[in-house]
C-alpha cells in the first residue's frame, strides 16, 4: 500500500521538475537579456538612425519598420480572419465544406515561416512586381497570422451563449442583424485578444520578411508602402551574423534584442491580462 504512494510522490516530483525547469529556463533567459541589454538602452538608441556602418547610433528606423509591417499585417488579417470565423461559427453546418475549410486553416497554420517567405517572394515581389517593400512584407505576414486570428475569433464567437442568439432571433431580428448587433459586440474583447497575440507574432517573425520587405540598412525612412524598410528581428539577425564587427556590436545586439523582446512579450502580456480580466468579469 505504501509503495503505491511512494510511486505517486516520485511521479509528481518528476512532473513538477519538468514544469518548473521550463519556467526557470524562460525566467533565466529573460533576466539574462534584460541585464545585458539594459545598458544599451537610451533615448538616443531608440530615436536615432544607425551610424558608422551600424556600429554606432540607434535603431529607430527598425522600430518604425516593424511597426509599419505589423500594422499592415493586422489590417489585412483582421477583417479576413473575423469574417472567416463568423462563417465557421455562425453559418456553417457540419459537413464537407466546413471540414475542408478547417483542415485548410490548420494546414495554413502549419506552413513554415520560411515557406511563407518564398511564397511572398514568388507572388508579391516577383509576379505582382511590388518588389521588396512594406506592402509585400505586410501581405506575407498578414497571411501568416490569419490562422491565429481565425482561431481566436472563432473561440470568442463560440463563447457567446446560444440563448443570446435565440432571444434576438425570437424577436424577429434577422440572422445578419443578430450577428452584427448581438454576437459580435459580445465577442469583441475575445477577438481583440486574439488579434493582439497575432500582432506579437507578426512583429517577431524574421524569415517571411527576409526576401519580401526587410533591408539591411536604409538611409531614409520609408515614404510609401513601396519602400523597403529595416525591421527589428532582421536587424538582430544582420548584426549577429553579418559583417566584421560582430563582437564590437554585441551591446547594440543585446539592446535591440531587449527592445524586440519587450515589444513582443509586452504585447502578449497585455493580451493575456485582458483575457483573464474578461474571464473574471464574464456575466454569463
Amino acid at each position, binding site marked *: 500500500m505504501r509503495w503505491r504512494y511512494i510511486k505517486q510522490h516520485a511521479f509528481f516530483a518528476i512532473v513538477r521538475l519538468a514544469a518548473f525547469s521550463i519556467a526557470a529556463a524562460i525566467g533565466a533567459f529573460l533576466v539574462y537579456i534584460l541585464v545585458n541589454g539594459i545598458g544599451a538602452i537610451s533615448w538616443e538608441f531608440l530615436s536615432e538612425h544607425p551610424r558608422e556602418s551600424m556600429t554606432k547610433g540607434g535603431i529607430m528606423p527598425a522600430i518604425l519598420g516593424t511597426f509599419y509591417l505589423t500594422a499592415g499585417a493586422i489590417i489585412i488579417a483582421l477583417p479576413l480572419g473575423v469574417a472567416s470565423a463568423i462563417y465557421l461559427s455562425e453559418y456553417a453546418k457540419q459537413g464537407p465544406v466546413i471540414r475542408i475549410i478547417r483542415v485548410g486553416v490548420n494546414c495554413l497554420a502549419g506552413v513554415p515561416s520560411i515557406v511563407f517567405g518564398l*511564397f511572398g517572394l514568388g507572388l508579391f515581389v516577383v509576379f505582382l512586381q511590388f518588389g521588396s517593400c512594406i506592402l509585400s512584407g505586410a501581405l506575407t505576414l498578414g497571411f501568416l497570422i490569419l490562422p491565429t486570428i481565425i482561431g481566436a475569433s472563432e473561440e470568442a464567437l463560440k463563447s457567446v451563449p446560444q440563448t443570446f442568439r435565440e432571444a434576438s432571433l425570437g424577436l424577429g431580428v434577422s440572422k445578419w442583424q443578430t450577428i452584427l448587433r448581438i454576437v459580435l459586440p459580445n465577442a469583441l474583447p475575445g477577438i481583440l485578444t486574439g488579434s493582439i497575440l497575432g500582432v506579437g507574432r507578426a512583429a517577431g517573425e524574421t524569415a517571411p520578411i527576409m526576401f519580401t520587405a526587410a533591408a539591411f540598412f536604409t538611409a531614409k525612412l520609408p515614404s510609401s508602402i513601396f519602400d523597403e524598410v529595416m525591421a527589428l528581428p532582421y536587424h538582430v539577425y544582420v548584426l549577429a551574423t553579418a559583417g566584421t564587427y560582430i563582437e564590437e556590436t554585441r551591446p547594440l545586439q543585446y539592446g535591440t534584442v531587449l527592445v524586440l523582446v519587450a515589444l513582443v512579450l509586452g504585447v502578449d502580456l497585455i493580451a493575456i491580462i485582458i483575457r483573464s480580466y474578461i474571464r473574471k468579469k464574464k456575466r454569463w
Partner: protein
Amino acid sequence: MKRKIKETIIKNIFLFIALVSIVILALIVIFLFIEGIPVFKVVSIKDFIFGIEWYPTYDPPSFGIWSLIVGSFIVTLCASVIAIPLGVLSAVYIAEIAPPLIKEVFKPVVELLAGLPSVVLGFFGMAVMAPWLQATFDIPTGLNIVNASMLLALMAVPTIASISEDALYSVPQEFKEASYALGATRFETIARVIVPAALSGISTAVILGMARAIGETMVVLMVAGGAAAIPESIFDSVRPMPASIAAEMGEAPFRSDHYHALFATGIILFGLTLSFNLIADYVSHKFKEVGSATL
C-alpha cells in the same frame, strides 16, 4: 422575400471569405511549383532528393539536398527527445496536479515562451550557448546539432504542452471518478486512465510540435552551423532545409538554377510539414474518444 435574398447573399459573402485560407494555401503550392519545378530540368527528382552533394555555386553545380533533409530530421528528432517529455509532463502538471494559483501563473508563462521571437532564441544560441558548449565539451564549434536542438525544443514545448493540456481536459470527469472509486491513487488514475484516454490528442500535440520544429528557420539558420554534410556526431554542424533557403536566397541570382533549387527545397519542406499536419488532423479525428457510456 427580399430579406431572405439579402441573408443568402450575406451568407455567401462570408463563405467566400472563409475560403480565402484555402486559396492562400493553393497559391503557396502554385508559386512554390512555378519557381521550383524548373530545377528539375538540370537535375532529376531522385538526384535532387537523394544526392548528397549540395554545391549550388560550383561550376558545374550539384543540387543534392539529402544532407539538408538529414540535417532537418536530426535536429527535429533531437529536439523531440527533449520537448516531448517536457511538454507532456508540463501539460499533466497544469491539467491534473498544479494548485489553481500556480496554474494561473504557469499557463501564461508557457504562452510567453510560445511568443518569443525565434530570432531572439537564435541570437541567444549564438551569443551565449555556443561559447559555453565549445568551452565545456572542448569541441571546435558550439554551433551544432545539440545547440540547435535545445533551442528548437524550447520552441516546440508550448505547442506540445497546450494541445496536450486541451486533450487532458477533454477526458470525461466520470473516467476519473470511476478510477478513484475503484481505489486507484491519483498517479494510477493519471497514468492508466487519463493519459491513455487523451492519447490521440497527445499524439496530435507531439506531431504538431515536431512540425513546428522542422519548419523553424531562424534558430537553425543562426545556430546549426551550416555545414551541408551528413553529421557523424551530435556535436557536428548541419544545414537543415530552412537554413539553406534563408541563407542562400539573398545571393542566388534571380531565376538561376540555384534560385529554382531553393524553391524546390521549399516544396520538400512544405510537403513534409503538410503531411505532418494532415497526419495530426487524421489522428485527432480518427481516434477521438467518443465520450463515456451511460447507464
